[in-house]
């Protein structure tokens, strides 16, 4: 693997069926809108290295099926996710109403420190809007979520969503709020940062020897 990165974050994309989770992921990775997409079976996967605040971060993204019957399959992927995109469809109140359930699921099954960003997808279908921006942002505020409205069709805010989430996690790591070395944090050091850590350790050891 010639890819080198500083961190690896495990991300989840969750939300009711038909909200456009797979399309968001496809748009993020391929920079294209996926026509004729079917329901996701189980869990799909995608990864991309992004640059966040001068650090390269590999995002390992699990795109889960929104359909209820896959719930038991998808829940095993929740564990150890560092970040999650909680997606609803702004043209469907039903998907918005389900958010609470999804949120509980994410908070209980994934790591408790999971950084969640609320994503109102299908922004391009303004005419069919059923959920207002204000309403959703209030919900986000109440539940301490970040919030963005996106369009997988036009690509608007798609990359921004992932970057915002990753940036938030990085800040938390830097502030010490998140410990990447804790099990199930959903964060791993990449090759380059591992090397840096080892060097630091070696220096520390050398110092120790000197002290003796």
């Amino acid at each position: 693997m010639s890819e080198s990165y500083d961190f690896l974050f495990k991300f989840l994309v969750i939300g009711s069926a038909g909200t456009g989770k797979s399309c968001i992921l496809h748009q993020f990775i391929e920079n294209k809108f996926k026509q004729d997409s079917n329901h996701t079976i189980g869990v799909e996967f995608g990864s991309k290295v992004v640059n966040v605040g001068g650090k390269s971060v590999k995002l390992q993204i699990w795109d889960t099926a929104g359909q209820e019957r896959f719930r038991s399959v998808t829940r095993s992927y929740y564990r150890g996710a560092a970040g999650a995109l909680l997606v609803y469809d702004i043209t469907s109140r039903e998907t918005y109403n389900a958010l609470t359930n999804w949120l509980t699921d994410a908070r209980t099954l994934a790591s408790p420190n999971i950084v969640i960003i609320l994503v109102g997808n299908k922004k391009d279908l303004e005419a069919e809007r059923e959920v207002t921006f204000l309403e959703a942002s209030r919900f986000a505020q109440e539940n301490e979520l970040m919030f963005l409205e996106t369009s997988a069709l036009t690509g608007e805010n798609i990359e921004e969503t992932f970057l915002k989430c990753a940036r938030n996690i990085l800040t938390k790591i830097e502030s010490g709020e998140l410990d990447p070395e804790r099990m199930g944090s959903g964060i791993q050091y990449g090759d380059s940062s591992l090397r840096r850590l080892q060097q630091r350790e070696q220096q520390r050891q050398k110092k120790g020897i000197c002290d003796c």
Partner: protein
Amino acid sequence: MSALSLDIKKKFKSLIGKQDSFTSPVDEQIDRDSFPGDLPAVAKYKHTVLANPHEEQEVLEGIENIYYSHTDTSLYELEKLPEVLDLQDIDADRNRLRKQLNVVSKKVSDLVLQNHPAYARELQRVMELEKTLQLASVICANGRRNLSDARQIFTSASLKMLANVRKRQQLTGLLKSLRTIKTLQRTDLRLRELLEEEDYCGAIQLCLECQQAASTYRHFKCISELNSKLQDTLVMIEEQLDVALSKTCSNFDVVHYEKVQKAYRLLNKTQTAMDQLHMHFTSAIHNTAFTIVLGYVELCSGTTNSNFHKRQYTDLCKNVTQDSFTPCLIDLCKALWEVMKSYFKTMQWHEQNDINVQDKDETEEGTEEIAFNKKYIKQKLDHGLTRIWMDVQQKVKLFVLGTDLSHFKLEEFIRVLDIIHRMIEIGEEFCGSKSDGLQDSLKQQSLNYFKNHHRYRMDELRMFLENEGWELCPVKTNFTYSRLLEFKFMKHWNKSPELSPRGDSSLTTDNKVVYFKDFTDGATPFDVHPEDDENEDVFSYSFDSEGNDSDSDSDIPDELKQDYIDEITGEARSHRQYKRRISHNRSRKNVPIVTNTTINLLRVIGKYMKMITVLKPIAFDVIYCISQLFDYYLYTVYSFFGSHDSVRNERAINQRLHLTLQRIHSNVIAEKATPGAPPVDSEENQDRVPQPHLSPVVDLTAADKLFGLSERVVAAESLVFLANQFEQLQPHFETMIPSNKKAFLQQFYSQTISIASELRKPVYWAVSVHAIDYNGVINLMANVRWDIKDIMSQHNAYVDDILKKFENLNRKLSDISRRLPIPRVVYTSVWEHCVRLTNRILVEGYSNAKKCSNEGRAFMQLDFQQLLSNLEKMIDLRPIPEKEFVEGYIKAYYLPESQFDSWLLDHKITRFVLHSPLYSVEGYIKTYYLPESQFDSWLLDHKEYSPKQLIALINSVDHLNKKARQRLITVIEDMERTRR
């Protein structure tokens, strides 16, 4: 005669008569001047003349006539003489003659005198005439002199005039020449004009005409200069023509080319033109390729200062960035295609036009030469095809190999392949070349790309496995790989794999595009947009399960769906819903058991197979990688569920499975990097993947969940499902793999795929081992006394204990089966293991008996029969496995020593072949009855019993004496030794 003499006589007479009448004035003068000597003679005659005129007349008349004739008068006179001479007569005659003569003389003298004046007069006139003649001569001389003078003067003037005229004429001619020369000079300008108008033919014609004209004026000095100038112009025209010719390389235009060809034909240089043309094509290929790549490299580098244009093409190709690779490749191919198309059109033109030319020129004498030319051109063009394709191929190959494509997205890489593939097809159409160079680069890049791609996929697979919760992924009952969109491309050849993909390719050749005919206009075969690309379609949809998804949705009643949603809110309700789900699951009894990873793995296989259709050269490598995917899945299932140290039991894994696992371990699984240890050879480790770790979500220790039985079921059954899918795919693989590699496939199927179901044993074994508390049974059995003296009618408590534990297991199993359809094979496997383990425990328990009586032995049989009959009620496992193991052990007690050998030999074969490894409780129990003589061979054959059990058996057998026991124990110990 007489007449004549008469005439003369008359004349003579008349003459005498006249002399008398006149005297000429010149008489005297004549006398004096002309006849001075004669005068005396005349005077003498005058003296004898007779004076009488009549006499004289008579005399005259007497003259014989003879004297007037011209005869010899003397002779006449002589002849007249008579024979007898008479002097008289003679004298008379002489007198007469004398007289006659006198008369005649006198007459003559008279006549002379008479005519003298006339004579003088006449003489005078002659004199006068002489004088006049002299005068005339003088005049003539004068005239002549004058005439010559005049003539001299007259000629020189006219000559001058003539000369002038001539000069004028010449000058007129010169003027004409000069005019022509002037025109000639001017033609130079016209020539340039013509050249600008690209009318080479006209230019050459004009030039040649000029040259011809000039050659006629060769004598002018200025002409020689002009001539050389014309020559230069001609050379220039040729150069221009050459440039024009080179233009045809990149953009063939019939009109343009015709002009050029006509011009060359005019120059009589068609052969040279052909050679030049080939040179131009070669350089055109190089230049186009270079320019395009340079353009992209400069565009991407952004900096203009690095001197890319001085680099070698190969070097340049290495500087193409990955982003610009595909557009650059497309442009390169397009440009090279244009060049090739131009060449193709050139050939076409020659094919058509050379025929015409021949038709036209057939009558001419140069036919032979033309035919030769035609042949030369044709040969040259035909030969050129291969050379040009070689050049084009080389350029594309260098470009393709210049960039590492391994990090390309699959779609994009496929696109690159497609382009190269199209190029190869074009090459084949162009000159029938197999394009080894391009194929090579294609293979090299494909392999490189695919290896890298596969590494990612393997890593992804590991990630999937590490995150896999081994939950059943609900799919439609009739789900197979073919339902996945990734396999959609095979749909049309699903039914008859023989037709594909090779049959497929032959199909495509039928309606294959003929590039050089289909893309005659500005369009190129590389214009196709990725959206329109057939390849792209398949990869761009990602989700699928087409109708499948919605179908299976409709399987679930709406209210049930409602239940699912409720499930998230409260766990308390979940049990009820599980029950609902069971009923649902029951209705779909044969639902395929697959995991999320299984589906993803199938998708990857689908993509790989799709890749084979474009990556034919590396079909084997791809299939090998497909086998690795399966290997890894199999190994993971084993390492997660079948390889627990606590229950590691070599007997649970048969030899073939063991070998397969070992092979996978050494081929696919990367060594764990131990810190501090020297890093493992990265080259070798690159193609391997570290062993995955089981997701922490999965709990294999919870007793109430039967130690992860449901996860085990999903894992093992999904593996079996996968193997099943592989079996269905086998014919496709068979057609895809090169025939010389078929052995690999056979080996893979026989050693790995067919082994997959064997993995159930170790996976479920673990459940069987943990599900029943065998040690508790042993403890219970230890409390039983076997040296009883009475036959018992009530079985022992440990039997109930075992049965209770079995019932417990049965309940748990049915609990699980409500959530998950447990295939019958799983039940069988779990129960079989449990029964076998129980049997083993029983034998172990029986062997623990220090003392045993005949009644005790019967008691054992009673217990075992009780257990068996209850088991048969509880589980539908027939026959109860390894029943004979226990029975045999018990009954061995009764065997007479002498029957041992034959009994054992009989059982040896069947048992060891069919039930290896064998643990028969029954056998063990029965051994108790064996006579000593049979023990020896029995012992030798029943290696399934441990030495401890055997020794215990020997010790407990009552009917053996001490010596016999001792001997049998030694046999057992010997056996033990040889076993090791």
